[in-house]
Every structure is written in C-alpha cells, then in structure tokens.
C-alpha cells in the first residue's frame, strides 16, 4: 500500500451521500491525528447516477492525487450497482467489501465475480429507518467502514461523530441521537 495506510473506494448513486461519507471519514480520521485524503470523482452529476468517492488514510504525508485502483476496502452504498459497476475491480484479495443490502453474505457472494476477500453486508435501510425514521444510508455505511477497516478506534469514532453531528445538525438537534443510534446499531449488526 503506497501511502502506508489504507485506501478506500466508495460506490454510490448521486444523492445518496457516498461523497459525504468519504469526507466525513476523512474528517473523523483527521481528528485522531491521521493524514487524510477524501475526494469524489465527478462526472455529469445527476441524482441516481453512479458516483465514486475515495479515501486515503495514512500515518505518512499523502502525495498521490490519482484515483484509487487497488483499494483495501470497497464500500457499496447501493446494491443495485452490483449489476452495472465492477465494484471489486482491483480490490485486494486480502481486503474487504461492504455492501448495503438486506441479503446475507452467502446470497451476495455470487454477484461478486468470485472475489476471495472478506465480504460484509449491512442492512442500512432497516438500521436507518429504525434509528432515524428515514432512509439515510450514510451513517450506517460510515460506521461499517470504520468497523471493518479498523482505521480508528471505535470508541474514539463514536465520540468524534457526536461532536461532528452536534456541529452539522446544530439547527436540527433532534436527529443527532438517531444518527448516533444508527452508528452503534451498525456495530452491533456487524458483530465487530
């Protein structure tokens, strides 16, 4: 791994918040003292179009500015992308992929072109609707990325996310607890 850290690729659809999740992950890792990079790949942006976002998290200075072609972790925010986007392209064999789906790992694996690394599924819809009353896949997928990558300590993550949400939702404090619940429920669901 070039940056002596971890490289993450996010696949989502425009409007689902994959870019925001990548920027939030950069933000929260920065607070633990890491060198971070979080950036989206822009095309003709429109709601629902496939989009990609990237993270590099490292102990060392990050100088590479290209997209990420051999990620350690892939996060798929929308499972319908599996039929149209080659989400495991370049994904390291000793890496992992997380897919937002109510399906089990065994049901999803046949759709992953024989990928041999670790596969995780997260039912972000159920988690989000239970916790927030609405479907925002962002928070569950972010928590899953942290739990699977072990890029930072989970307790530190929870503490930092509370601060971050308090800032972000200063005018909507009623959604803070729901988002926090979505994070911890994801940890529980993953058993990690």
């Amino acid at each position: 791994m070039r940056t002596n850290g971890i490289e993450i690729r996010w696949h989502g659809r425009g409007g689902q918040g994959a870019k925001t999740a990548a920027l939030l992950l950069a933000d929260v890792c920065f607070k633990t003292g890491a060198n971070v990079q979080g950036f989206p790949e822009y095309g003709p942006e429109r709601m629902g179009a496939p989009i990609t976002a990237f993270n590099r998290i490292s102990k060392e200075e990050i100088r590479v500015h290209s997209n990420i072609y051999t990620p350690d972790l892939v996060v798929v925010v929308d499972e319908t992308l599996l039929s149209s986007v080659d989400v495991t392209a370049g994904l390291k064999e000793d890496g992992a992929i997380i897919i937002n789906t109510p399906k089990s790992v065994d049901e999803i694996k046949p759709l992953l072109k024989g990928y041999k690394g670790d596969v995780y599924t997260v039912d972000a819809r159920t988690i989000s609707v239970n916790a927030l009353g609405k479907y925002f896949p962002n928070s569950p997928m972010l928590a899953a990325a942290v739990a699977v990558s072990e890029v930072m300590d989970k307790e530190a993550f929870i503490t930092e996310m509370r601060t971050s949400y308090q800032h972000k939702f200063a005018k909507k404090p009623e959604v803070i607890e729901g988002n926090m619940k979505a994070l911890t429920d994801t940890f529980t669901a993953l058993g990690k």
Partner: protein
Amino acid sequence: MAIKDRMSGNEAVAYAIKQVNPDVMPAFPITPSTEIPQLVSNYIANGEMDTEFIPVESEHSSMSATVGAESAGARSLTATSSCGLALMWEELLVAASNRLPLVLALVNRTLSGPININCDHSDSMGARDTGWIQIYAENNQEAYDNFIQAYPIAEDPRVHLPVMVCQDGFITSHAVQNILLEEDDKVKEFVGEYKPEEFLLNPGKPMAVGPYSVSNYAMEAKYNQEKAMENSGKVILEVAERFKKTFGRGFGFFEEYKTDDAEYIMLIMGSAAGTAKQAVDDLRAKGMKVGVLKLRVFRPFPADEIAKALSGCKAVAIMDRTESYNGHGGPLSSEVPAALFRNKVNIEAVSYIYGLAGRDFMVETAYEIFEELRDVVENGKKVKQHRYIGLRTREEQ
C-alpha cells in the same frame, strides 16, 4: 502557532481570502471554483470579513469590476475557471497593461470542447501571454500559501502586475486533506496594508486610467511591462524567503525533488507532481536515479534556472497538461527546450501530453515515462518527441 486543520483546496483559498480581507471581490460562479466566492460570501454574511462582494452577471463583468476597483485604489480579487477565464480575456490584458496588482484565484479546468468540467491547464496556459504572473500549486497547502504570497508580489513597486494563483480543479479544489493554517494576525502582518501610489479615488492627484496610447508611447509601455515581469522574479524569491522566515515553508520558482544525482527528471506542474514524487521514491527503491522538477512559477518563466537544474541529467520528460495544437507539444514543450538550447544544455527531452480533461495521472503513468526515458538513453529507442500518455487506445507511432 500554525493550526492543524483539514480542508479542500477551495476551502483553503477562501480561508486565505478571509484572512487577507481584501477590499473588493466581484465574482461569477463557475465549476469547479464556485465554492470560493460562495464561501467568501458566507464569511461576509457571518461578519467574519468586510470585503465588498459584488455579484456580477458574467466573468467579463467580474474582471472588469475587479479592474475598476483596483484602479480606484482598492485591493481586489476574483475567482474563476475554464470558460470563465476565457470570457475575461480582454480584461486580463487590461489588468496587466494597466499594471494593476490584483489577484485571481484560478481553479484549473479544461476549455471546451468537448465540454467537460475536469482539470487540465488549458485555461491558464491559454492566458500565458496576457502579462500575468502565474503560480501553480501541488496541493491545498500550496494553494493557501501561494495565495498569501500573491499580494506582496503583485503590489511590490518593482512589479505592479496581476497574479494568477492556480490549483487543479477537483483534484485539489475538491479533495479534503490535512493543512497547516497560519494565525489571522500573522497572515495580515505578512500581507501588509495596501498603499497604492497612484489611484483614481485620489482627489489631490487626478489621473487617467487606460487612455489611448499613440505609437510613440505604446511600445515603451509594453517594454516597461516586460521589465516588470522580469523584475517580478527577484520579488517572488524575496517574498518566498520572507514567507519561509515567517511560516517555515520554503518556496522557489520550482521544487527539485531528488534531482541532485538524477539521471532522468520529470518536469511537471500542479497536483501530478505529488504523484510523480511517489513514483520517484518507488523507482529509487529499485535503484533507478530519477527525480522531479515541479515548476511552481510559470510566469515569469525561469528559463536559465530550469536549464541549470536539468544540466546534470541525461533526459527530461516535459509534461504538458494542455495541448498547443501546433504539432510539437504544449507550452512547456516549447519553452523548456528553448531554455536548454540557449544555455547550451544538450540532453534528451521528450514532450508528453497527459491528463487532458481530467484523465487520471497515476503513479504507474510516471513509471512508464521514466522507463521510456531510460530506454531512449540506454538503448537508443526512437520515440516521437511529442507523445500522448494515458490514452485509452495506443498512440499511432
């Protein structure tokens, strides 16, 4: 004490603008620089700065208003990208020839067509002969640092020229990375108060700005403008030296990364230089003596300094992120070999076009180029002097 933070390149430049708190900012939004005026407007609305923000109806107007405000004696700036810069063309020349020390935060994006929003250097490179000083950044930190140095360079009485502070659209403008921010008062002190010598809103000393100049005078005006550009080199280095003393980060016309004993050097600008540095480290680990010359200041063009820096190597890859459509390469491919020739530096020089309209420049791309240079020198491989790298299909040889 510098403050550790994380920001995108656009956020970093907007933050620098807030700290400098110039007098007037006319602007019109265009991707990918839109966030800069947007964030500055937020700072103004929140009472964090008191710059007069003028929303205008086009970039022709934003540069016109910036020229007007600067002529009046106000420290002024604007921001734009791509076709926005193209629409400012006439005023770019007016700003430089009127010797107005205004600043343009440029976020590099390709010019049409095909229409595309991603990075290459065709916008600023197209404006390379408009008389502006041009400074390029590798990352958010450099975009921030360069902006802070812009007014002290522009406003120096030996210079009096506008400065374009460039960064790569999306690649750095929209990438969040770590950054060191300096304290407000230190930035303000470094930039200093603007005291124009001559300006329009000066009742005791009336003047005309931009009048017709007959042939008896116009050529001298242009000669003086060229002298100012030549003078600016010294000033750019002085300001960089003062910046280093104040904030600890050093700058020059270019950065030489592991070039001392390098046999093969890649001359490159902007964000791709960071990626190339990684390739240098990887190839050096395998015993290949390679280096990167990252050009920061393109105008004035440091021809003699570049020739000297390249004089010890066997071959240079000249990397242009824009096309000149002249059959021989981009702007660097013309100016670097001219510098080598005039300084009698006889090395292999291969011109590459890369990264047009956002085509990704990868570490592997840099490996490929360094290996080709070695092939040229060691095995006498014949290559076209004007090469495309990163095409989806192989180039016709």
